[in-house]
C-alpha cells in the first residue's frame, strides 16, 4: 500500500478534488485542540493507493499553533517510506496566491526524494472566460509536471490517475537537487515572477465577485443581507432542527416503550428507562442541530459568504478581543452551545477561538429558557406598564437574555486585555474567495463526520455522567423518593452553600441534577414538590414556589446563577474534546460557577436591601 499526499492552499478547491479522486471511500482523523482535520481515502482506480488530504494552508512557514501541527504532520509524512507521491493543488485562476507555497512543497518533497505533481485546478473557470494557462512552460519553471484539472467537472482526473500510476514521464532536465537548498526568500521572489508571467490579468475573473461584493458589503443592502442570512441560520438551529430533535426523542421513546416492559427486574428496568434511554437521548437529541448547523455554515463557507460576514462583524467584536469569525458561533450559542463550539472551528486564530469558547457558554441557550420561564412566572408580576406597552415579565426575560450576552462579552474583553499571549494570534488578513455554488457531497460528508465525532467522542462522557447522576438519585431507596436518595443527601450537605442565596436543599438538588441539562432543573423541582410533569405544565409548580417562603431576591439570584453557570455536561464534554484540553473545561466550569455564585449572592443581598 503506497500513500499519496494531497496538499494545497485554502480555497483552491482541494476538497472537491479529493472527493473526485476517492468517491465516498474515506475517513477523517481529527487533531484534538485545533481545527485541523486530515482525511484519508482510497482511490477506486488505484486499489493499492491511499490518498491523504491535508488541511489547506498558505505556507509551510507556520505562524500559528494550528498551522504548526499541519506543517509538522506534512513534514513527518514526507519521511514515511510508504509515501510515494505528493499532489499539490493550485488555483489556476489565482496563481499568485498558490505558487510560493507550491515551490515550498516542491523543495521539501525534493529533499525527501518524493515526486510532486502540481494540479492546476479550476481550469473550467479559466476556459469559461476564454483564458488559458501554459501548463507545459509552467511545469518547466516549477520542475514538476503540471496537470490541468477541474474538481467541479471532473475533467483531467484521468490524467491525475495516470500521473499516480507513473505513466507520466518526467524530462531528464528536472534535476531536483538544485531546488533543495533554495531559501524561502528566493522562492518568494521566484513565485512572484512566475505569477506575473503565467497568471491571468485583467478584471474578468473577479468582475462577478466585485459586483456581488457591491451588494453584500454595501452599508445598506449588505446590512439587510447580513441580518436576513443570520436570521435563516438562527432559524435553522432553533426551528428547523426542532422536528428532527423531536423525531429522535420519539424514536427513542418508542424503542424504550417496547424494550423496557420486557425487563423483569425493577432496578434493571428503571436503569434501562432512565439512565440508558435517558442518557442516550440526552446527547443524541443534539445530533440534528449539529448536522444542520454544520450544513448551513458549510453553505456559507463554500459560497464565499462566511468571509464577508466575518468582515462585517469584525470591528465591533474586536473591541471585546474577538474576531468577526466569532459572531456565527456566538449567535449559534443562543440556540445551543454544543453546535456553537463546533462552529468555532472556522476561527483560524487559536487565541480568538479560545476567547470564543469562553463566550459561548454565556450566550442565553434554549435550555435556559424553561428555567427562566419558571422563575419569571413565579417572581415577576404578569402586569404591564405604559398602557400595556411594557410587560414586566417580557422585560425581565429580555434583561436576563441581554445579561448573559453582556457577561460573555465582558469575560472575553477582560481576558483578552489581561492575557498577553499573542503568540497564538493571527493577523486579520482574510481572503475573500469568489462566490461559488456549494458542492453538496463534500458538505454532507463534513456534516456526517462532525455528527459522528460528537456521538463517539463526547457521547461517552455525557453517558457516563448521566449514569452517575442516575445512580445518585436512585439509590439507596430504589427510586422511591428523590429527597432521601444519595442526591437528596448531597443536596442537604451543600445546603449551606446555597443558604446565602436564600435557597434550601431542594433547590440544591435541582441545581445538581441540572448539570445533565439545565432544563432538568424544572422537572427535578417538580418531582421534589410532588408535581407530575412539571416540565410540561409549569403552573402548579409556579404556584408551589410562590406559596413557599422563597423571596424575590432568591428568585432573581437563581436567574443570575443560571445565566452564568456552566452546568451542562454536554457542553463541557465537547469543549474538552474540541479544545483538546480537559483542564480548560474544568477551569471554565469552576470559574463560571464561582462567577455565577458571587453574582447571585451579590444580587440576593442587594435585592434584600431594597425589598
Amino acid at each position: 500500500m503506497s500513500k499519496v499526499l494531497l496538499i494545497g492552499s485554502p480555497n483552491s478547491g482541494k476538497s472537491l478534488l479529493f472527493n473526485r479522486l476517492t468517491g465516498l471511500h474515506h475517513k477523517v482523523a481529527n487533531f484534538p485542540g485545533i481545527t485541523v482535520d486530515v482525511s484519508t481515502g482510497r482511490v477506486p482506480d488505484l486499489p493499492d493507493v491511499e490518498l491523504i488530504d491535508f488541511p489547506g494552508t498558505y505556507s509551510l512557514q507556520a505562524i500559528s499553533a494550528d498551522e504548526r501541527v499541519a506543517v509538522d504532520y506534512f513534514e513527518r509524512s514526507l519521511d514515511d517510506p510508504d509515501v510515494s507521491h505528493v499532489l499539490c493543488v493550485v488555483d489556476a485562476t489565482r496563481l499568485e496566491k498558490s505558487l510560493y507555497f507550491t515551490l515550498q512543497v516542491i523543495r521539501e518533497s525534493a529533499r525527501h526524494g518524493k515526486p510532486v505533481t502540481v494540479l492546476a485546478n479550476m481550469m473550467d473557470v479559466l476556459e469559461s472566460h476564454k483564458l488559458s494557462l501554459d501548463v507545459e512552460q509552467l511545469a518547466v519553471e516549477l520542475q514538476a509536471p503540471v496537470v490541468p484539472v477541474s474538481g467541479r467537472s471532473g475533467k483531467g482526473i484521468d490524467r491525475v490517475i495516470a500521473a499516480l500510476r507513473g505513466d507520466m514521464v518526467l524530462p531528464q532536465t528536472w534535476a531536483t537537487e538544485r531546488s533543495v537548498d533554495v531559501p524561502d526568500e528566493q522562492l518568494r521572489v521566484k513565485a512572484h515572477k512566475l505569477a506575473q508571467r503565467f497568471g491571468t490579468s485583467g478584471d474578468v475573473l473577479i468582475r462577478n465577485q466585485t459586483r456581488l461584493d457591491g451588494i453584500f458589503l454595501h452599508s445598506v443592502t449588505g446590512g439587510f443581507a447580513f441580518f436576513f442570512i443570520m436570521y435563516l441560520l438562527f432559524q435553522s438551529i432553533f426551528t428547523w432542527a426542532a422536528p428532527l430533535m423531536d423525531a429522535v426523542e420519539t424514536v427513542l421513546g418508542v424503542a424504550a416503550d417496547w424494550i423496557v416492559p420486557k425487563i423483569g427486574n425493577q432496578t434493571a428496568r428503571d436503569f434501562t428507562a432512565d439512565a440508558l434511554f435517558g442518557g442516550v437521548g440526552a446527547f443524541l437529541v443534539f445530533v440534528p442541530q449539529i448536522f444542520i448547523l454544520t450544513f448551513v455554515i458549510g453553505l456559507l463557507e463554500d459560497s464565499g459568504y462566511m468571509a464577508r460576514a466575518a468582515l462585517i462583524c469584525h470591528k465591533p467584536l474586536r473591541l471585546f478581543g474577538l474576531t468577526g469569525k466569532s459572531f456565527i458561533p456566538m449567535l449559534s450559542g443562543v440556540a445551543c452551545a454544543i453546535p456553537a463550539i463546533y462552529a468555532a472551528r472556522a476561527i483560524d486564530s487559536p487565541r480568538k477561538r479560545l476567547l470564543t469558547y469562553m463566550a459561548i457558554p454565556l450566550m442565553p441557550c434554549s435550555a435556559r429558557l424553561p428555567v427562566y420561564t419558571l422563575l419569571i412566572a413565579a417572581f415577576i408580576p404578569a402586569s404591564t406598564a405604559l398602557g400595556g406597552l411594557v410587560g414586566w415579565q417580557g422585560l425581565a426575560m429580555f434583561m436576563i437574555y441581554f445579561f448573559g450576552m453582556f457577561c460573555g462579552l465582558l469575560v472575553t474583553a477582560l481576558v483578552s486585555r489581561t492575557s498577553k499571549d499573542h503568540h497564538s494570534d493571527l493577523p486579520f488578513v482574510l481572503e475573500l474567495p469568489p462566490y461559488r455554488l456549494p458542492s453538496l457531497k463534500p458538505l454532507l460528508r463534513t456534516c456526517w463526520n462532525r455528527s459522528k465525532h460528537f456521538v463517539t467522542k463526547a457521547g461517552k462522557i455525557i453517558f457516563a455522567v448521566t449514569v452517575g447522576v442516575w445512580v445518585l438519585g436512585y439509590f439507596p431507596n430504589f427510586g422511591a423518593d428523590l429527597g432521601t436518595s444519595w442526591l437528596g443527601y448531597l443536596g442537604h450537605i451543600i445546603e449551606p452553600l446555597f443558604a446565602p442565596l436564600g435557597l434550601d436543599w431542594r433547590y440544591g438538588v435541582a441545581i445538581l441534577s441540572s448539570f445533565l441539562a439545565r432544563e432538568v432543573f424544572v422537572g427535578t423541582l417538580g418531582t421534589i414538590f410532588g408535581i407530575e410533569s412539571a416540565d410540561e405544565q409549569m403552573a402548579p409548580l409556579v404556584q408551589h414556589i410562590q406559596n413557599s417562603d422563597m423571596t424575590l431576591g432568591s428568585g432573581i439570584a437563581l436567574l443570575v446563577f443560571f445565566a452564568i453557570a456552566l452546568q451542562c455536561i454536554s457542553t463541557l464534554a465537547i469543549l474538552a474534546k474540541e479544545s483538546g484540553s480537559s483542564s480548560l473545561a474544568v477551569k471554565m466550569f469552576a470559574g463560571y460557577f464561582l462567577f455565577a455564585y458571587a453574582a447571585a449572592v451579590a444580587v440576593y443581598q442587594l435585592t434584600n436591601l431594597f425589598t
Partner: protein
Amino acid sequence: MNTNLWSLKSGDRCEIVGYDDALDEKYRIRLMEFGFHPGESVSCLQSLAFGAPKVYRVSNTVFSLDDEVASHVLVRIATPHE
C-alpha cells in the same frame, strides 16, 4: 504621495513601498505570502463604514485587512494616469 494602506479609499490604487518596523515579522511574512510584496500594485475595492476592515485587490485575489495590519503597510498612492 507616501502613506499607509489603511488610508486608501474605495477606488484608490497604490504601490507597496514596504512595511513599518512595528509590524510583527510573522505578519510581514504572511502578507508577502499573500502577494503584498514591495513593488506590487494594490487597489482598494471597498472602504466600509464604521472602520470595518477594508477590501483590497492584489492581482486576482481579494483580501480584507483591518487597520491593525493595513496601517503598517507603507504605500505610494498611484496618480490617475499610472
